[in-house]
């Protein structure tokens, strides 16, 4: 009788290769390794930045020099040598494209492999794509449509030059330069990223989407994203990434700041698929990200993330519920396999009255991976009638992985209501056999069970992203059944 045991399942999972592992050979303009004030100045100069920005970077660098790497997360890795990283890399050929014909064919080939060619993207209804390829925005589409509504959607470098008043006012306002070690580093050396401004009362007519890729051996990627939703406006922002297969570790330390002014709503969705390392735990991306949003009165920020990649993830998209009646939401699926480690969760800081937050976290661990949820719910003394609901579910596959939950609750106001629920379950052989008996093979059965487990979060993603995310979950957890 053919047998399929948990051991077989584990073996399958281990042999799964990184499906998007390929590397585009595009000539790059790369800085020598190392970091000092001259390098920071050089980055700023290279990007033709105004003096205030150069000073802001230098200030950040000086903070960073005095800081030490945080060690409290439940992750173990060899610390990057920050003097052995090149802090700037830009694709060489960067003309202003009038059509796709002018784009580097190799770049197009990369997008084709990813199934996200510009051609397809352009046709995709309602999606504007600002592609960040190795630090510099290569092309932006749909800009005109957005411009008619007064919406600004461009690279952060462009925004620094074209809209200095907005950038100056808001950059570092949610994530201060010295917030943490990686945020300080990012503030000093950020290469590029996206900027988005939605004017008062405007509802952004399409999902704004950015694809990030790390594409140069040995270069850290320091993205900086700033989204500002002015009063009573709405925007849905999608961030998705895949990275080429690589042997050495790559550092990724992004900062994302969201500002939702009175009555505004920002929906920020991420599908993250950085290279997770080989099945023996070699290589892979270190993903140390600071994401935070600020809600003014009656504003709402919703974070949805599907995390399947990276060797080490350290990430806590958070909401500061400053204004009365503001709402923060965090929906997360984190998948770890082989030797991946993830320490992720959120912080909900309730400052205003009648503020509400919801946290739904789904962790899926396979192989020898470690998956931790770490969340803080803080109710300030002035936050009358604050409400929080948290739910953390873990799904385990096999006997060698780990799932951990670290909820922190600080309530300083007696009217607060905070609820926390947590479950841990395991994909059982009985579940798989039941599916098998109905004609569903093991690979498909796992996909079905995992999708069912993740449904509450997948449902929060915009349609086209949900399909991609579902596919990613399957890729991350399945091997080809022999």
């Amino acid at each position, binding site marked *: *009788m*053919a*047998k*399929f*045991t948990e051991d077989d399942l584990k073996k399958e999972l281990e042999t799964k290769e990184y499906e998007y592992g390929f590397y585009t050979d595009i000539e790059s303009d790369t800085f020598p390794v190392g970091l000092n004030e001259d390098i920071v100045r050089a980055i700023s100069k290279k990007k033709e930045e105004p003096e205030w920005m150069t000073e802001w970077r230098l200030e950040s660098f000086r903070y960073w020099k005095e800081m030490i790497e945080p060690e409290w997360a439940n992750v173990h890795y060899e610390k990057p040598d920050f003097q052995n990283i090149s802090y700037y890399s830009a694709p060489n050929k960067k003309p202003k494209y009038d059509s796709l014909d002018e784009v580097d064919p190799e770049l197009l080939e990369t997008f084709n492999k990813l199934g996200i060619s510009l051609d397809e993207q352009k046709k995709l209804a309602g999606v504007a794509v600002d592609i960040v390829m190795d630090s510099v925005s290569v092309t932006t589409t749909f800009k005109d449509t957005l411009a008619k509504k007064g919406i600004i959607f461009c690279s952060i470098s462009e925004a620094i030059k074209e809209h200095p008043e907005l950038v100056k006012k808001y950059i570092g306002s949610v994530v201060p330069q010295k917030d943490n070690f990686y945020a300080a580093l990012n503030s000093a050396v950020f290469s590029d990223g996206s900027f988005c401004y939605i004017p008062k009362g405007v509802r952004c007519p399409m999902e704004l989407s950015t694809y990030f890729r790390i594409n140069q051996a040995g270069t850290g990627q320091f993205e900086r994203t700033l989204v500002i939703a002015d009063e009573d406006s709405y925007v849905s922002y999608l961030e998705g990434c895949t990275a080429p297969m690589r042997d050495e570790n790559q550092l990724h330390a992004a900062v994302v700041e969201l500002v939702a002014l009175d009555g505004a709503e920002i929906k920020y969705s991420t599908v993250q698929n950085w290279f997770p390392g080989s099945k023996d735990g070699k290589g892979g991306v270190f993903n140390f990200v600071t994401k935070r949003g600020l809600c003014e009165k009656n504003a709402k920020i919703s974070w949805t993330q599907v995390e399947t990649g990276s060797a080490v993830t350290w990430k806590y998209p958070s909401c500061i519920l400053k204004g009365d009646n503001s709402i923060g939401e965090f929906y997360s699926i984190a998948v770890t396999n082989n030797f991946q480690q993830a320490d992720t969760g959120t912080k909900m800081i309730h400052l205003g009255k009648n503020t509400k937050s919801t946290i739904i976290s789904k962790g899926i661990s396979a192989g020898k991976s470690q998956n931790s949820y770490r969340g803080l719910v803080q109710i300030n003394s002035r936050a009358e009638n604050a409400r929080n609901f948290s739910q953390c579910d873990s799904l385990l596959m096999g006997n060698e992985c780990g799932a951990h939950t670290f909820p922190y609750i600080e309530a300083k106001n007696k009217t607060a209501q905070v609820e926390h629920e947590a479950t841990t379950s395991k994909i*059982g*052989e*009985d*579940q798989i*056999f*039941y*599916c*098998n*008996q*109905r*004609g*569903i*093979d*093991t690979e*498909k059965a796992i996909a*079905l*069970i995992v*999708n*069912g*487990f*993740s*449904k*509450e979060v997948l449902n929060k993603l915009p349609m086209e992203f949900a399909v991609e995310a579902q596919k990613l979950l399957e890729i991350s957890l399945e091997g080809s059944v022999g």
Partner: protein
Amino acid sequence: MLHIKDLHASVEGKDILKGVDIDVNAGEVHAIMGPNGSGKSTLASVIAGKEEFELQKGEINFEGEDITELDPEERAHKGLFLSFQYPIEIPGVTVTNFIKTAINETRKAKGLDDMPASEMLKKIKEKADMLEIDRKFLSRSLNEGFSGGEKKRNEIFQLAMMEPKLAILDETDSGLDIDALKVVANGVNKLKSKDNAVIVITHYQRLLDYIIPDYVHVLMGGKIVKSGGKELAHELEERGYDWIKEELV
């Protein structure tokens, strides 16, 4: 359709089946009865291909093919269906989504395209009506929070949707009240044809008042110790199993 010969199977080193012989032809209904622990559910699991059971000896031939080396899903694709005694919960996967996946995976294995959505919906409606299943039930997570009766009814719903050649009903009557039992039995009877067959595994004769068997087999100590017509079931109901034990001695 199904020919089982001298079947021996064990689990974790313990021998459960010790030489089972059964022949089931198209158009027939067989009942397998026996006291607790006699190996009834093991027999169902071994036929369906559950891996934790070790087949030591014997043959399982289904539709002219030796299926002992086939994976459970391959057996299912050939038209074998097991209604579980304890159906499994799959949170977040709706009854509709599950059955749709099951049907389309089976079609895929046969080289067919997915069933068109309109046809699927029509079929779901038809079968749900037949089994008096509320439409809301179909959008609930599979077996999660279902009562015992709902779980069994859901098994028969899947049976109706899959239209297998051979259906094995493992203790389908347990957990059903008399009204639900009638609905379920009525559903099975409607699905019966000269081209398919049913094996009913049960502890009690109750279900056999509604699904009338052509043959009744008594499984005891891992072997079929007695076979007969439907009247054997009545005799077992009245006299229990002890007299058979005595007969064997």
